[in-house]
């Protein structure tokens, strides 16, 4: 696609912005999927009553442990799997109802990238990107015109005639992305696309996906087990566990709100959710006179904490010690946590927490130390 089409698409994406909420790209309506018992296995319920909405133009991430049903979920969107019950609606069309022929047409409007890239070893980078176009019966001249700018877009124009075995993992995934974009889809499915890549390559691939989402107005639905991926690019997230969606919504809200146990355990690596060991070792659960209260203060977005802590001292006369702290970024917004200890009686602690709450900072008492 040329620069002009890029610009046009961005314009279209902006126009559609208003309709986003009302007209989602993908909707799952109480979808269940069971796999019939095999010779060596019992019947498995991979998905159980899933309701999920993927807003148009969003990057929506589905996170869960392996075996949670993520792969099945994403394969229902392009009909690689059929639901046992419920409806999967993509851009207004119920995928489960389509016959093979119409399903093939729909698939041409949905790109997909894979954990292990799934490039044909017998084809060059160019010919791999050309494959979906050949399948769609597009003539060689048009193919040439479409593939060249795609190679540019993913920054691999110089690898045009290389075979996959001559490319690095990150380069292979870039070719995979270019291939997925070749038929100018409206939706891109990403099946653990960065799970086989090192952290640095992961970042560059995620940046590329974000660019494509922004500039082409393409909706991206990705599944992953990596919190980093969600934090970095997903503006919407759904947490899946045991075949059920346990939480979904805007990423920032889900990750910083009252989170489900599964979300919390997946968030494990997120800054400051774990207390430092030196604190937990000496912490007790019940207050006693003379003990210092350990408070976890959570700040979201752009709240400044520094002056608030200073004012706890100056306005309320409470001495504040900072024990631990960290700042992270979720969906482009800062999210941070401070663990402080306060020497004050219970009434004063309540007062201090009200003061913080009045200034938009939530806090929780996690324990007491000497």
């Amino acid at each position, binding site marked *: 696609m040329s620069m002009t089409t890029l610009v046009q698409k961005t314009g279209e994406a902006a126009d559609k912005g208003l309709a986003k909420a009302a007209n989602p790209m993908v909707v799952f309506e109480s979808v269940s999927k069971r796999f019939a018992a095999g010779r060596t296995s019992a019947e498995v319920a991979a998905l159980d009553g899933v309701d999920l909405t993927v807003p148009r133009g969003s990057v929506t991430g589905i996170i869960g442990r392996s075996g949670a049903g993520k792969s099945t979920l994403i394969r229902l969107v392009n009909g690689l799997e059929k639901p046992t019950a419920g409806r999967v609606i993509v851009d207004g069309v119920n995928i489960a109802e389509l016959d093979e022929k119409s399903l093939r047409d729909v698939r041409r409007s949905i790109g997909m990238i*894979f954990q292990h890239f*799934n490039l*044909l*070893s017998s084809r060059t980078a160019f010919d791999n990107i050309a494959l979906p176009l050949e*399948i769609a019966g597009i003539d060689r001249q048009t193919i040439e015109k479409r593939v060249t700018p795609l190679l540019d877009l993913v920054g691999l124009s110089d690898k045009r005639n290389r075979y*996959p075995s001559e490319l690095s993992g990150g380069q292979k995934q870039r070719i995979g992305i270019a291939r997925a974009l070749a*038929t100018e889809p409206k939706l891109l499915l990403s099946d653990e696309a960065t799970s086989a890549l090192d952290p640095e390559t992961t970042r560059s691939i995620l940046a590329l996906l974000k660019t494509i989402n922004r500039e082409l107005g393409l909706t991206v639905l990705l599944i992953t087990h990596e919190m980093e991926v969600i934090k970095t690019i997903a503006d919407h997230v759904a947490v899946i566990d045991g075949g059920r969606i346990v939480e979904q919504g805007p990423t920032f809200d889900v990750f910083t709100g009252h989170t489900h146990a599964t979300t919390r355990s997946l968030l494990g690596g997120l800054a400051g959710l774990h207390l430092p060991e030196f604190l937990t070792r000496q912490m007790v659960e019940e207050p006693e006179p003379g003990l210092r209260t350990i408070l976890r203060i959570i700040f979201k977005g752009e709240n400044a904490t520094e002056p608030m802590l200073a004012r706890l001292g100056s306005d309320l006369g409470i001495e504040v010690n900072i024990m631990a702290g960290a700042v992270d970024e979720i969906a482009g917004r800062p999210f941070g946590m401070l663990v402080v200890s306060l020497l004050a009686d219970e009434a004063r602690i309540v007062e201090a927490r009200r003061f913080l709450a009045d200034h938009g900072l939530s806090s929780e008492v996690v324990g007491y130390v000497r």
Partner: protein
Amino acid sequence: MSADIFALLLKSMGQTLYMVAVAGLIGSLFGIPLGVFLATSERGELFAAPSVNKVLGLIVNAARSTPFIILVVAIIPFTRMIAGTSIGTTAAIVPLTIATIPFIARLVESAIREVDPGLTEAARAMGASPVQIVFKVLLAEARPGIASALTLTIVSLIGYSAMVGAVGGGGLGDLGIRYGYQRFMPDVMAVVVLVLIVLVQLVQSAGDRLARQFDKRIRPR
């Protein structure tokens, strides 16, 4: 070695090449599609037809376990139907072809099964039809394996063709047996064996080169 024997050697070599070429060609024509079908027709696969797959598998196994020389004799009526006669070089092509089809089919089947199922899935996600998947993905990716399969087939055919002397098929093997062995002409025998060795060697290295050329999986050194 007299000029007569030399002419006989050339003639026999021509017969061998003729039988191997025709049987190899027709065998591939039937064997490759059969192999593709065997590899794609089990439950849940592209052309799922588990019972047909099972029946064809049984037939293929039966044909492969029948000793070739017995097959030659057993199908004489069929040979007569196809070739109009049951003796001679052309007639010998019939059992050679019949033996080749299941041989190629099994080799092609395993070459196709080597193709990463992820590629089939990717092609399905692109909206490819089953036929497109066979031609654009499976056969394309299995080319190195299929080249090796055909090489092995031709080498085996050269060996099998030595046995069709029993029905007047002629060829190098027949020359070796009738002159070298039955008429006590060790020099003829030696030359026949030598020619066969060279022939197999040529086929094998040409096949290997082809397979290497098709195989883009290894980083070129």
